[in-house]
């Protein structure tokens, strides 16, 4: 049973990052936690397909991403239908300016196409290599690279609109501004 204990520890160790990824995908902490839970259960039930010596973390991210995408297909718009409430629940930052800034950043991130967003997060925040990110997303390394570049460019574009912070949490307004 010691191998199982090792696996359990590895899973536990991956939870904080898995949650952060899940929140960034679905924009809602409760749903993110459900997603992580489902991921862990799924992983546990399929331990046989995990290859020892490979990254447990990358394996779990792959499962989570797949679960999210199948759920996403089912729910479509509902998944993106988030107001600022989830962000509020996360604002542990003491300083008002950083809070505004980070919320603005979250909003901007949400305007990206899902593929670009997940690629950027995997590489830029989760700390995966391009190769690992490609594995997790089931695409070519070059695809990840170009998505990450596009995502960065797009974010810079969105965030360079100074007045964005004055709009308040109105998603549609921002989407309109953004598409012009």
């Amino acid at each position, binding site marked *: *049973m010691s191998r*199982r*204990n090792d696996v*359990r520890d590895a*899973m*536990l160790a991956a*939870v*904080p*990052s898995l*949650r*952060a990824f899940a*929140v*960034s995908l679905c924009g809602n*902490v409760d749903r993110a*936690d459900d997603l*992580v*839970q489902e991921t*862990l*259960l799924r992983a*546990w039930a399929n331990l046989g397909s995990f290859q020892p010596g490979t990254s447990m973390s990358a394996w779990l991210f792959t499962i989570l991403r797949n679960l999210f995408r199948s759920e996403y297909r089912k729910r479509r718009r509902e998944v993106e239908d988030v107001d600022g409430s989830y962000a509020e629940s*996360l*604002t*542990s*930052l003491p300083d008002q300016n*950083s809070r505004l*800034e*980070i919320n603005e*950043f*979250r909003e901007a*991130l949400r305007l990206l196409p899902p593929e670009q967003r997940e690629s*950027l*997060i995997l590489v*830029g*925040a*989760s700390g995966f290599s391009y190769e690992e990110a490609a594995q997790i997303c089931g695409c070519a390394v070059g695809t990840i690279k*170009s998505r990450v*570049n*596009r995502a*960065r*460019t*797009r*974010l*810079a*574009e969105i*965030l*360079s609109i100074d007045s964005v912070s004055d709009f308040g949490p109105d998603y549609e307004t921002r989407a309109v501004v953004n598409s012009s």
Partner: protein
Amino acid sequence: MNKSGSSQQKTKVDVRVSETVKLGPDNKAKIGQQLRLMYSQVVDQGVPNRFDEMLKRLDDPTGEGSKE
């Protein structure tokens, strides 16, 4: 200012997506910094109890979720 985005200078050249905005090293570093900050807000919460308990229960071969 954070020192965390130190690799941005040498990667200046690899931004080939020439759309309307030029992505300078400053922007890139800024985005990276915000990304990590956003991510760490969740990561810093650690492991909520529900996961710890759930995995412990899974670990117990007699547990199998039948008993609380």
